[in-house]
């Protein structure tokens, strides 16, 4: 009695459905009474009354007068039906849900990362009001004198602060180091951000006075993980690089500093930084660019007004902070610069700079994968709709509205995508963690808030609904167009309609092939890039080399005893069993650390300042032998290169070619510019092969290696390189013992050189791995799609094939017919895909190394691969077609 339900819902908003039931029951009993009065038996009367009442059960449903409640009611009914229908075809449901779960999961995972890295606002009050103040000369960092001059003159911010975020404090005193990320913050940091204390108090202006006693605020996460949320933590001390610092409070939960991807765990006042980092002149030095300045715009002040206000004070600020010893030219450009501003609502992030491009590229890739998955599911639905033709025809014949039928089918497809999205959300959680773990390195762990926020959930749901409608609408419309007469008569095996229906299926397969080509070519390019980077000659032999970094305790010895100590350490390291050669250096290759300066060479006139720049390192003898960089001419450093003896250097071939126009400038002289002065002459005593400096991508820059033994400057850390026979880790205990012997408070970290090298191409590895994975997935889905369409097609055309064979067609001819169809789809798909790919790969050009965006070999390989996969997918259906027994096929008819 569907009209009854409709009626109930129609009035539902102001009347209770029981009311209607009573009214209708009354009507029924009146009618029964009447019928009895006319002489019917009570039973017959009741039956007759009910019969008249139920007369409208088959009446066409007029959904247009349905209220909201009716829709809901229908929806629940549709949902029940959909669940039942999916249960009946488990294989279909499983494949559809799984491929969507993969597609949606991948999209959600990448989006979660994009959200965490690029979109999420800082957990502070009104983050949109925060503005970073940079110098217009390009540097985002400023010196402490600039910060103080700016702070004292500005009038556009309601609060302003500076902080240094690259501090890493060792929490242990001696032995294996444990690190905490630290932010050194100026007094107004917490007040300006509007961060509240979780416990105790936060740092304020009174904590940040020059020469202050160090105090510390812990982040909530750090407090919970390291102190087990100890309520009595305030007043306790924490050891930061061997300084005992009093803890004054814990900051608000969820606040981990301003740098996305790196969580600040300890906050100390900026004034304590010189003590903690053992650099006494850190705050007075006008060449220490290490602070980030951020201000909160005063109420209602536009960013133009802020910029205007800063423009006003810039000349005075820069005039007061000219770096010492700057050349006249440099002074002029320094004083002429201004301030630039940048919004910081979503936080600051080196991670973002490094990965946002890669993440967007990955987002594009996974979106394409999802498209392919959708096409596959749409194809499955089409096939299913064809096999459900009878069911749908019967429903139409029984009076079901086509609109209802479409809604029913859409409910089914949205249900599939919703389940897929739910599973995809789980995949995404898991995938995100995996990705972050993949990107984290031992010494640079990445912290990201990967919780599912409203944006991620919204994205997930939107993708689910869109895909559900996207792949479901076409098949649903097509299925609902069923003609009950034809469908029922043709015994569920459409012959005339078959041809038309499958053009849509074929078009979907063609689209899949096209998109797959794009993904496979993209994967080929990215994998090729990675392979080239991994196999590029770095100029050293990283295998079997262990890098050791030792952090020396503060209060190091003077220059002379430093040199003596170094010689001693080196001697003892070389004596460790298993070590075949050892050296010390200031820098190790392929980190982000670098050291460059201008050279002055007689007879070389640089065309620009950039042409005068060379890169430096400082090493002991044995460095090149240890790292495996061949010495091409001249000699290594030796014991005769001492303080007081003529200064010597070893250079690489690139330097010789640039500055001396010869690959072998041994015996020639160069000078290093230091500000206005030009340093002492340095004689080149050796030439080494070009070796990579910061990055495997860039060609080796002109490099100068100076001798450690001629430098008395005292550093706080020491890098040692050890070439080891056997496993690189075998020497760890012995080396620790040697260094502990030198100073019990030294802390040591070990890093195999090969790992450092691999870490430097992590982004490329990530892109190669993921694009390769998704490319393979795309290929698999496209293969399934092609196979599905052809297998179905052959099954449907069994009669036709039987007739052909009965009329004399050979098996090869029948198989050829199937293969020909596949070949046509492949050719069309590959042509379309080629055009699409040429457009798409230009977007990833920036990631490529050693190959163009239209690398012919990659294109050719991808096309061949797809063609091969396509023909493999067609093989079974073709064989099945050839194996049709005409007698059998025709008998079935």
């Amino acid at each position, binding site marked *: 009695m569907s*009209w009854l339900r*409709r*009626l109930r819902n*129609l*009035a539902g908003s*102001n*009347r209770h459905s029981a*009311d*209607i039931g*009573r*009214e*209708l029951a*009354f*009507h029924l*009993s*009146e*009618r029964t*009474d*009447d019928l009895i009065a006319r002489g019917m038996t009570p039973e017959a009367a009741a039956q007759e009354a009910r019969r*008249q*009442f139920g*007369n*409208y059960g*088959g*009446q*066409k449903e007029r959904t247009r007068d349905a209220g909201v409640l009716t829709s809901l009611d229908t929806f629940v009914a549709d949902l029940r039906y959909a669940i039942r229908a999916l249960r009946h075809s488990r294989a279909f449901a499983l494949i559809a849900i799984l491929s969507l779960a993969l597609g949606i999961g991948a999209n959600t995972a990448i989006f979660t990362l994009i959200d965490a890295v690029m979109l999420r606002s800082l957990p502070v009050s009104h983050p949109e009001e925060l503005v970073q103040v940079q110098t217009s000369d390009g540097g985002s960092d400023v010196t402490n004198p600039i910060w103080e001059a700016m702070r004292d003159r500005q009038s556009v911010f309601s609060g302003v602060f500076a902080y240094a975020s690259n501090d890493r404090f060792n929490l242990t005193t001696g032995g294996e180091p444990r690190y905490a990320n630290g932010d050194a913050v100026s007094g107004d940091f917490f007040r300006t951000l509007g961060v509240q204390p979780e416990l105790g108090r936060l740092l304020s202006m009174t904590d940040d006075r020059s020469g202050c006693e160090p105090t510390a605020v812990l982040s909530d996460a750090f407090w919970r993980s390291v102190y087990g949320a100890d309520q009595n933590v305030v007043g306790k001390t924490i050891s930061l690089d061997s300084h005992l610092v009093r803890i004054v409070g814990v900051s608000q939960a969820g606040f981990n500093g301003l740098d996305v991807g790196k969580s600040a765990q300890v906050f100390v006042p900026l004034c304590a930084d010189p003590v903690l980092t053992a650099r006494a002149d850190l705050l007075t030095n006008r060449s220490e660019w290490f602070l980030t300045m951020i201000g909160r715009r005063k109420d209602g002040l536009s960013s133009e007004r802020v910029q205007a206000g800063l423009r006003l004070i810039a000349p005075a600020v820069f005039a007061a902070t000219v770096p010492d010893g700057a050349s006249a030219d440099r002074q002029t450009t320094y004083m002429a610069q201004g301030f630039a501003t940048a919004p910081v609502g979503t936080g600051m992030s080196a991670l973002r700079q490094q990965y946002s491009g890669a993440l967007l590229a990955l987002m594009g890739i996974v979106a394409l994968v999802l498209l392919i998955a959708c096409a596959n599911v749409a194809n499955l639905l089409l096939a299913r709709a064809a096999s459900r033709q009878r069911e749908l025809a019967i429903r139409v014949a029984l*009076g079901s509205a086509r609109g209802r039928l479409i809604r029913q089918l859409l409910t089914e497809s949205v249900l599939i995508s919703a389940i897929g999205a739910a599973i995809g959300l789980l995949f995404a959680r898991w995938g995100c963690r995996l990705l972050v773990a993949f990107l984290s390195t031992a010494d640079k762990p990445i912290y990201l808030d990967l919780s599912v926020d409203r944006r991620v959930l919204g994205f997930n749901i939107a993708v689910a609904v869109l895909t559900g409608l996207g792949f479901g609408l076409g098949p649903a419309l097509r299925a609902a167009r069923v003609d009950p007469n034809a469908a029922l008569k043709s015994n569920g095996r459409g012959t005339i309609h078959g041809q038309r229906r499958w053009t849509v299926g074929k078009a979907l397969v063609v689209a899949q092939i096209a998109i797959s080509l794009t993904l496979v070519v993209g994967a080929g390019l990215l994998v090729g890039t990675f392979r080239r980077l991994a196999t590029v000659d770095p100029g050293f032999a990283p295998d079997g080399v262990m890098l050791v970094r030792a952090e020396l305790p503060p209060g190091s010895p003077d220059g002379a005893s430093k040199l003596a100590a170094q010689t001693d350490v080196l001697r003892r390291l070389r004596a460790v069993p298993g070590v075949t050669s050892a050296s010390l250096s200031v820098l190790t290759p392929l980190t982000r650390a670098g050291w460059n300066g201008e050279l002055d060479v007689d007879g070389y006139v640089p065309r620009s300042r950039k042409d005068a720049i060379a890169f430096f390192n400082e090493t002991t003898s044995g460095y090149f032998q240890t790292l495996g960089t061949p010495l091409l001419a001249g000699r290594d450093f030796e014991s005769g290169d001492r303080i007081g003896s003529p200064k010597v250097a070893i250079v690489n071939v690139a330097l010789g070619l640039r500055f001396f126009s010869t690959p072998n400038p041994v015996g020639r002289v160069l000078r290093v510019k230091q500000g206005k002065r030009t340093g002492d002459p340095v004689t080149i005593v050796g030439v080494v092969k070009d070796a990579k400096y910061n990055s495997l991508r860039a060609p080796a820059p002109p490099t100068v290696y100076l001798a450690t033994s001629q430098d008395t400057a005292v550093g706080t850390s020491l890098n040692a390189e050890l070439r080891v026979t056997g496993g690189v880790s075998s020497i760890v205990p012995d080396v620790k013992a040697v260094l502990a012997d030198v100073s019990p408070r030294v802390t040591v970290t070990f890093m195999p050189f090969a790992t450092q090298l691999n870490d430097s191409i992590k982004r490329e590895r990530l892109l190669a791995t993921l694009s390769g994975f998704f490319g393979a997935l795309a290929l698999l889905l496209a293969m399934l799609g092609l196979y599905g369409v052809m297998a179905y097609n052959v099954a449907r055309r069994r009669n036709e094939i039987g007739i052909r064979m009965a009329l004399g067609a050979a098996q090869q001819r029948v198989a050829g017919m199937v293969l020909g169809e596949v070949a046509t789809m492949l050719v069309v798909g590959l042509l379309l895909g080629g055009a699409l790919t040429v457009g798409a790969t230009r977007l990833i050009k920036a990631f490529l190394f050693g190959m163009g965006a239209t690398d012919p070999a990659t294109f050719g390989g991808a096309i061949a691969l797809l063609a091969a996969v396509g023909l493999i997918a067609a093989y079974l259906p073709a064989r099945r077609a050839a194996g049709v027994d005409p007698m059998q096929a025709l008998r079935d008819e």
Partner: protein
Amino acid sequence: MPKSRNDILQGTLSLLVLKTLAARGSLHGYAITSHIQTVSADMLRVEEGSLYPAMHRMEQDGLLRAEWGTTEKNRQARFYSLTAKGRKQLAQEEESWARLTEGVRRVLRYA
């Protein structure tokens, strides 16, 4: 679907209900069907499946008012009566019906 012989012409049902209530005051649904059937000498039969949805729609539109009451047989029934708006609607519908039948009459006579 074949229409039943005495199916009431679409759109006239509300006119009949309004007229019946105008003539007889407050009535329950069953009495309305009986009335229409009797007065039309069994030529018109109101189907329950159309009557109740129509009356509820008219109630929602403010043309009818409904209250629970007790019948002479002591049964609970819902009694419908006209509102002022219903009366106005009746006048309009009567007029348009008259125009329609006049038009049809003319066509039948002269065409």
